């Protein structure tokens, strides 16, 4: 060890799966990595989280699907995806062997559809599953599925029964009490939770007198939501003992460090990929620089330090 240059440990671990660093890409913002591999060396990332995959191809919502808001982005993609068949044939093989962990994000209209995808992912190169329970079409008693603690616990249990990989439950922020959602996932046996998904928002085109998105509402992401995301990650991390993956508006290393300090074991970079296709690896590098400047040798020493 040379003076001044200490080796910095960036490794983190989620449910027994080791990652080279705590920075991953957020589902739906990075495809399956293919398009971004022109810019980004995927092996520099802790994990790639894929776009949500369903049991059959989904068309998603009509266009316009996105619009910009102040420091934010509204999207209503509607979980368009090519279905698990093509995913297993094309996308998963592409990601395999790229030197990064693979987290497959799973969506469905019904419990059966989720389970079908989870079953199909058995014995594949997927390292972890992330279950998106904020799917707009899945309802339970009037409100969406991911907004009801009972439903969260139930689906978590079912998925856990069928999954061969560890399971991350991805929580919706559109709830009164995120701690309840987190505890429900933990009670259902989740190996980890990730949050936040997007906040439901709306924009109106006053000249057209119409919603800016064909779907009326969309999910808000980007720096605008970071304060809400950080608060929820902090609350969730202090409500459960399973690992928390934090996300929501992370656009630089400082943002990521805030989430780690609030208790996240890892972080995901979403909307920022659209502004900077190398965002995730640059953020991983920036965390390392921060540790170095502050004479900290292990990234785990900044996790959960602010209480």
């Amino acid at each position: 060890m040379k003076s001044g240059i200490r080796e910095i440990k960036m490794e983190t671990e989620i449910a027994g799966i080791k990652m080279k660093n705590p920075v991953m890409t957020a589902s739906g913002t990075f495809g399956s990595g293919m398009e971004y591999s022109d810019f980004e060396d995927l092996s520099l990332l802790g994990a790639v989280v894929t776009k949500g995959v369903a049991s059959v191809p989904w068309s998603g919502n009509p266009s316009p699907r996105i619009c910009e808001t102040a420091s934010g982005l509204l999207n209503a993609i509607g979980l368009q995806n090519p279905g698990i068949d093509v995913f297993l044939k094309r996308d998963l093989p592409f990601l395999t062997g790229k030197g990064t962990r693979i987290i497959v994000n799973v969506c469905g209209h019904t419990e059966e559809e989720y389970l079908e995808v989870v079953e199909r992912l058995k014995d594949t190169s997927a390292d972890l599953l992330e279950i998106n329970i904020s799917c707009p079409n899945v309802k339970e008693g009037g409100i969406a599925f991911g907004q009801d603690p009972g439903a969260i616990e139930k689906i978590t249990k079912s998925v856990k029964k069928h999954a061969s990989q560890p399971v991350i439950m991805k929580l919706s922020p559109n709830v009164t009490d995120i701690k309840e959602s987190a505890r429900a996932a933990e009670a259902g046996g989740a190996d980890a939770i990730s949050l936040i998904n997007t906040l439901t928002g709306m924009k109106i085109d006053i000249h057209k007198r119409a919603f800016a998105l064909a779907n009326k509402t969309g999910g808000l992401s980007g720096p605008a939501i970071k304060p809400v995301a950080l608060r929820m990650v902090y609350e969730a991390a202090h409500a459960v003992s399973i690992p928390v993956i934090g996300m929501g508006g992370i656009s630089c290393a400082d943002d990521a460090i805030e989430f780690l300090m609030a208790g996240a074991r890892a972080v995901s970079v979403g909307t920022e990929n659209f502004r900077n296709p190398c965002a995730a690896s640059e953020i991983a590098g920036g965390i390392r620089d921060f540790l170095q400047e502050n004479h900290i040798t292990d990234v785990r020493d900044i996790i959960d330090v602010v209480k």
Partner: protein
Amino acid sequence: MIKENAVVISQEKIASGIYSLVLGVTFAEEAVPGQFVSVYCRDASRLMPRPISLCEIFPDRGAVRLVYRVAGAGTEEFSRLHSGETAEIMGPLGNGFPIEENRDKKVLLIGGGIGIPPLLACAEKLSHPVFAVGYRSETYLLADLKKAGQVHAATEDGSYGICGNVMDVICSVPLEADVIFACGPKPMLKAVKAYAEKNAIECWISMEERMACGIGACLGCVCKTTEINSHSMVRNARVCKDGPVFKAGEVDLS
């Protein structure tokens, strides 16, 4: 495809609200007419890049020209760029028009409003380009178009050329064409598509959708397609990656 800080070589206002921006870029040699660049905003509140088509490509000078209309806060920000400053861009993006295979054919370039600029880049690579272009009132880029090919124009108020829109040009001037390249507002594209079908002319159109990633990853910019798309496995194609240029028959403009 690269993301870079492009140096502003020059910027000029060429009509009311219309600007011409020449940028020094590293990718001019590989760029194709019909492709576009994503231009990023400096203002941190505006996250999404603005897609702007290549209006001219200068491989020798390592430069491209963008001609754009100030439509909102992002393009307003671009209009304040001065030469010597830099603009963050990504490009060249998308597929572009099929130039090679049509170079020596009779290509009719149909453009409406701010859809006209990319057709100039096309014309500069074609042997016999003929333009049919429609403006609201004030014309722009006309001298450049005339240098590149034969021009038939319309204005809605009749202040220049035929009084009417670009379809009125096509109907009133006898134009022969093997292929059509079109760019403009959706109603125009619909009319062009119908015209091409009726006259059995091969037709390529450039589509517009709001974009986030610009490289095919977010699925924000899809347009409806008539057949199942081989990438998406549904009747949807990504304007940024599978387009912006599509064979007219492939897209569902309804």
